[in-house]
C-alpha cells in the first residue's frame, strides 16, 4: 500500500481478496485469529496485509541472498504487542514456502510460539521437530524420538552434526517469535552455545521477533550483540488502518460499510479510533468484528466491545509484571493525566528511588512512555487502550469526544463551498455563455470572477458576488453571500441582509438562522443572537446535526465581552441554549445517544470550546483575562461529564496561550495531547 495514496483512492486489492474468499469456508466471526495469526489461513493473511509489503519484500530478498550466496542474514523484527509481528512472520513463512525458486535452496523451521526451550539441546530438538512437521520425508520424527533416548549432551552433538550435514549446501531459515523470552529461557550458557553454533557453522538464518530491543541483543557485552539487523515494525499509518478495515469489510461482503468507509465521514470515524488505538494492528482486527455501517457511525458501541474483547489481553499484560510494577501500571490506568515518579511514590507510599527504577524498566519493556518537562519526567501508558479497558466509563467519554472532534465540519464545508463553489458556478455560467438564454449580467460576472480566480483576488470582488446573488435569486446563493460577508469580509450588517432574504424565502433554513445568530452576537446584539440560535436548533427536529459554529460563538463571547460579569452571563446564556436543545432531543445528562446517529448538542458545544482556542488572540489580552475565560466556563460546565475532557484541554490550551510553552502538555495523556496540539494549530491535521 503506497503511503501517499489519497483518501479517495482507498480501495482494496480485489484479486487477492476474491481468491481468498472463494477458497475459505470460515465464518466471518472466526476468520481472523486476533491473537494467533499463525492460525489464520495464510491466504486470508495475504488478503488483509497492509502497509508493509515493501518491508516483507526486503526480508524475502535477504533470505534469497542468504540462500544463493555464502552469506547469512539474521533479522530481528521488533515492536510492541499487537503491532503485527506474528502476522508478518506467518506471511513470510507462507511466501517462502511457496517460493519455487527457493524450494531447493532452503528449509524453513517455523518454531511453535507456545513452546519454551531452557537449553540448547531443547532448542535443537524444537528446530528439528519444526522441520519434521514441514518436511516429514526429510526430517524423520521417528528418528528424533530414538535420538531422545540418549543423554542430553549426546543428543546435542547428534543433532548438531545432523543439521550441519543436512545443511551443507542449503540454508536453514529459523522463524522464531518472542526471541527475548527464548534467550531468557536459554540463559547465558545456552545463548553462548547457540552463538557458537551459528558462528562456527553458519548454515542458518534467524528471523525473529520481539517486543523491544532487549539487553541480550543490544548490550555490547552480550554474545548476540550486533548479531541481528533490528528492523522496527512501525505502527500502521492512518491510511494503513483505513485500508485494513476496508479490506476486512470487503472480505466480509459488508458493502454498506465499505461505502461508508470511503466517505469523509467514515474516514473521520476511523480517524477517531486511530487517536485511541494508534497504529496497533491487533486493535483493528478486533474492532472489525464489531463493525457495521451503523456501528461505525455511532462508534461508541463497537469501540467498547473492542475494549471488552481486549480486556483479558491487557489484564494478562498487567499481571505479567512484578507486583510493584503492576501497582504503578494500575495507578496510571486510573489517572487522567501523566505522573512523575515523585507523585507515583507519594500515591503508593513508597520511595522515589524504588519507583524510579521500576518506571525506567517499564519504559524499556514497552509498557510506559515518558516525556520530559525541564528536569522532571512524566510517565503514561504507551497504549491508551490499556487505560481505557481499565476505565470503561472514561472510554465512552473519550470516544464520544473524538467522534465529535473528527466529524465533518459543516462550517468548513460551507467555507469551501463559498470559496470554490461560487467560482465553479460562475465558470459553469461562463461555459453557458454561448447559450441564448444566459443573462448577459451572469456572463459579465463570470468573466470578472474568472479573472479574479486567476489572479487570486476572490476577496476583492465582493461586489460581483453580491450582484451575482441578486441576479440568480437562489436561496443557496443568498446564503453563501451572507456567509461570505460574515466570515470573509466581516461585514455582519451586510450579511444579515442576505440571511434575511434567505429566511424570507425559506423561513426554516436552519443554517441561515444559526449564521444570523452569529452575526448578531458579533454586533453585540446578544439577546437576539442567542434567540436566533435557539430558534434554529429548535427547528432541527429531524436531528440533521446542524448545531452551529460553537467555536465561533465562544470566540465572539471571549473577544467581545467587556468585563467578567458580562462574559459569565453570556457563557450562561450559550449553555442555556444548548442545554435546552439537549433536553429536547432526549440527552438527559449522560452520553447516551437518543436517536440513531444524532450528536449530543452539549458534546458539540464542548468540541467548540476546544476549537475556540484558535480564535483567541492572546497577544491582545492579558493573562488575567485569559484566566477569566477558564473560570467563566468552569463555573458553568465543571459538573457536566460532556465537558470533562474539553475543560481539561481548554485549561491547558489557555495555559499555552499565556506562556507559549508546550512543555506543559506532557501532563496530559495521549490522545488528548494530540487533540490539543491540533486545536492550537501546532500539528498538521
Amino acid at each position, binding site marked *: 500500500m503506497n503511503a501517499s495514496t489519497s483518501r479517495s483512492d482507498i480501495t482494496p486489492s480485489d484479486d487477492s481478496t476474491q481468491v481468498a474468499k472463494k477458497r475459505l469456508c470460515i465464518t466471518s466471526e472466526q476468520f481472523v485469529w486476533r491473537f494467533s495469526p499463525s492460525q489464520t489461513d495464510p491466504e486470508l493473511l495475504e488478503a488483509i496485509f497492509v502497509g508493509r509489503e515493501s518491508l516483507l519484500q526486503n526480508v524475502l530478498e535477504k533470505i534469497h541472498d542468504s540462500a544463493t550466496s*555464502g552469506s547469512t542474514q539474521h533479522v530481528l523484527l521488533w515492536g510492541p504487542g499487537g503491532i503485527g509481528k506474528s502476522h508478518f512472520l506467518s506471511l513470510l513463512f507462507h511466501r517462502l514456502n511457496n517460493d519455487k525458486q527457493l524450494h531447493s535452496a532452503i528449509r524453513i523451521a517455523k518454531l511453535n510460539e507456545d513452546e519454551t526451550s531452557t537449553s540448547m539441546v531443547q532448542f535443537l530438538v524444537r528446530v528439528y521437530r519444526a522441520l519434521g512437521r514441514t518436511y516429514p520425508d526429510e526430517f524423520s520424527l521417528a528418528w528424533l524420538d530414538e535420538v531422545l533416548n540418549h543423554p542430553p549432551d549426546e543428543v546435542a552433538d547428534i543433532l548438531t552434526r545432523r543439521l550441519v550435514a543436512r545443511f551443507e549446501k542449503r540454508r536453514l531459515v529459523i522463524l522464531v517469535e518472542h526471541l527475548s523470552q527464548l534467550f531468557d529461557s536459554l540463559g547465558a550458557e545456552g545463548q553462548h552455545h547457540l*552463538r557458537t553454533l551459528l558462528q562456527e557453522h553458519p548454515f542458518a538464518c534467524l528471523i525473529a521477533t520481539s517486543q523491544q530491543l532487549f539487553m541480550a541483543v543490544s548490550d555490547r557485552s552480550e554474545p548476540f550483540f550486533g548479531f541481528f539487523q533490528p528492523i522496527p515494525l512501525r505502527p500502521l499509518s492512518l491510511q494503513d488502518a483505513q485500508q485494513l478495515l476496508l479490506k476486512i469489510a470487503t472480505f466480509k461482503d459488508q458493502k454498506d460499510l465499505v461505502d461508508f468507509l470511503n466517505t469523509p465521514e467514515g474516514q473521520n470515524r476511523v480517524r477517531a479510533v486511530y487517536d485511541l488505538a494508534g497504529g496497533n494492528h491487533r486493535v483493528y482486527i478486533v474492532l472489525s468484528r464489531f463493525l457495521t455501517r451503523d456501528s461505525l457511525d455511532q462508534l461508541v458501541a463497537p469501540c467498547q466491545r473492542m475494549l471488552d474483547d481486549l480486556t483479558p489481553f491487557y489484564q494478562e499484560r498487567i499481571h505479567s509484571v512484578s507486583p510493584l510494577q503492576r501497582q504503578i501500571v494500575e495507578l496510571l490506568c486510573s489517572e487522567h493525566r501523566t505522573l512523575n515518579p515523585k507523585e507515583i511514590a507519594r500515591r503508593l507510599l513508597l520511595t522515589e528511588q524504588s519507583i524510579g527504577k521500576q518506571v525506567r524498566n517499564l519504559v524499556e519493556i514497552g509498557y510506559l512512555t515518558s516525556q520530559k518537562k525541564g528536569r522532571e519526567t512524566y510517565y503514561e501508558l504507551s497504549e491508551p487502550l490499556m487505560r481505557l479497558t481499565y476505565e470503561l466509563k472514561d472510554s465512552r467519554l473519550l470516544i464520544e469526544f473524538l467522534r465529535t472532534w473528527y466529524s465533518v465540519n459543516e462550517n468548513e464545508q460551507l467555507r469551501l463551498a463559498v470559496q470554490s463553489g461560487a467560482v465553479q458556478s460562475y465558470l459553469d455560467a461562463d461555459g453557458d455563455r454561448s447559450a441564448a438564454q444566459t443573462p448577459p449580467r451572469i456572463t459579465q460576472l463570470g468573466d470578472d470572477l474568472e479573472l479574479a480566480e486567476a489572479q487570486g483576488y476572490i476577496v476583492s470582488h465582493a461586489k460581483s458576488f453580491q450582484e451575482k446573488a441578486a441576479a440568480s435569486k437562489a436561496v443557496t446563493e443568498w446564503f453563501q453571500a451572507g456567509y461570505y460577508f460574515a466570515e470573509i469580509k466581516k461585514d455582519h450588517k451586510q450579511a444579515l441582509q442576505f440571511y434575511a432574504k434567505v429566511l424570507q424565502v425559506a423561513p426554516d433554513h436552519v443554517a441561515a438562522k444559526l449564521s444570523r445568530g452569529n452575526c448578531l452576537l458579533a454586533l453585540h446584539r446578544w439577546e437576539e443572537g442567542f434567540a436566533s440560535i435557539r430558534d434554529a436548533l429548535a427547528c432541527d427536529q429531524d436531528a440533521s446535526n446542524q448545531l452551529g459554529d460553537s467555536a465561533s460563538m465562544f470566540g465572539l463571547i471571549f473577544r467581545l465581552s467587556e468585563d467578567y460579569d458580562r462574559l459569565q452571563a453570556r457563557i450562561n446564556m450559550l449553555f442555556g441554549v444548548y442545554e435546552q436543545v439537549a433536553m429536547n432531543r432526549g440527552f438527559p445528562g449522560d452520553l447516551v445517544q437518543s436517536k440513531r446517529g444524532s450528536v449530543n448538542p452539549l458534546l458539540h458545544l464542548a468540541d467548540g470550546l476546544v476549537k475556540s482556542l484558535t480564535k483567541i488572540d492572546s497577544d491582545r489580552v492579558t493573562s488575567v483575562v485569559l484566566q477569566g475565560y477558564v473560570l467563566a466556563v468552569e463555573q458553568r460546565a465543571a459538573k457536566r461529564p460532556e465537558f470533562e475532557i474539553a475543560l481539561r484541554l481548554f485549561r491547558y490550551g489557555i495555559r499555552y496561550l499565556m506562556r507559549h510553552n508546550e512543555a506543559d502538555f506532557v501532563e496530559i495523556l495521549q490522545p488528548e495531547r494530540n487533540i490539543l496540539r491540533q486545536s492550537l494549530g501546532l500539528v498538521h491535521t
Partner: protein
Amino acid sequence: MKANPGGNLDPRQVYGRDALIEMLWDRLDSQSILINAERRIGKTQILRKMLLEPRPPWKPVFRDLEKIHSAQEFAELVYDDVQQFLGKAEKARNFVRRLLEENETDYVSLKARTWKQLLTSAVEDLMKARQQQRLVFFWDEVPYMLESIRKNDGPKLAAEVLDTVRSLRIEQSAFRVIFTGSIGLHHVLNRLSAAGIPTSAKNDMFQVTVTPLAPIDAERLAGDLLQGEGILTDVRPDIVSTLAEEVDYFPYYIHHVVAGLRIEQLSATEANIRDYVTRQLVDASDPWQLAHYRTRLTAYYPDNNDADKAAVILDVLALLGNPSDSLSVDEILSSAQARGAHVKDRNELLQLLRAMDADHYLTRDLDGRYHFRFPLIRRWWRLDRGL
C-alpha cells in the same frame, strides 16, 4: 549484494582486507598473532575469509570460545580438533607411541588426564604429525573464555591457561594460533595482574589492530551495497563518499545505513544519509548500541572513580571545535580539573589516557596530542551528553 549488518558475509563480500590478510598469512610463518579490534569492525569476517580461502599449506580451524567456561573444556576442544585434523591413521600411530613410550594402556584415560596434559598432548601430536597441511587455530573471543575461567575457577587458573598456551608456542615453534577478542585481552591481563598473577602471555605474539576500511574500499562497499539494494542505479562519488565518511569507514555501519535507507524507502542523497545517521545517534532505542561506550566505562575503569574521570576527559575532547582538534596531556589535565574531575596528578592522567587509547576511545597524533579515535563516537558522545 545485499546489506547485511551483523550477519556472516560471503568471503567475496569482505572488502578492503586483502592486504591485511596477506600480511597475516605472511606473519604466521614466523609467529602467532593477536588481533585487537573494536567490536563490529569486522575481525570475525576477516577470520572467516581466511578460513574459507586459506593460503596453502595452512589449514585453519575456527573456534568461537565464548561457550568455553573451564580449562578442561578448552583442552578437550583443542584435543578433539587436533584429532579430527590428524585423522585415524595418525591417531592410531599416536596411541601406539604412547603405549610404548609412556606405558599408557588405556586410550580412554587420555581424556581423563589433566587439562594441561591434554593440551600438551594435543599440541605434541600435532607437531609430530606427518601432514602436508599445517593446522592453525583461529580462536575467537579468547578474552571471554579467560574471563569465564577466571570467574569460575579463579585468576590463577586463567593465567595458567594463558601461560601454558604460550609455553607451547615457544616449545613447539611450529604451533600457530590467532587470538581475537572484542574486549581487550589487556583487560583480562590487568585483572590477573591486579590479583597478583602477572602473565606475559602475549609477548611472543604479533599484535595487529584492525582499523576501519580505507576510504576507497569503504566507498566501493557503499556503492555496491546501494546498487545491490536497488537504491542507486549509478554510483555517484559524492554519495558514496558521504556515506562512508559519515560512519568513519566502518563496514558494519555502512551495511547498516544502506539497510536502513532501504527499509525506510529513502533515496540515497547526502541529506538523507546524514539525517539517517544522526537519527541513529539520537534514537532512544540506541539501534547502533553506542551507549555501550558510556556504560562500559565503569567495567573498564572500576577503581578510584576512573570511570567518571574518563567521562570528563571525553567531554573535554568532545567539546573541541573539530573532530581532528586535539589536546596535549597538560591541556587535558587542566580542562578536566576545571570540569570537576578529581585527577590527582599528571601521572594518573597519563595512565588513564593510555588505557583509553588501548580501548579505542582515543588516539594520539604524531605530536602526542589526544583526540577521539572515531569522529562518529565523538559525535554520539556530544549528543548523548548534551554537550
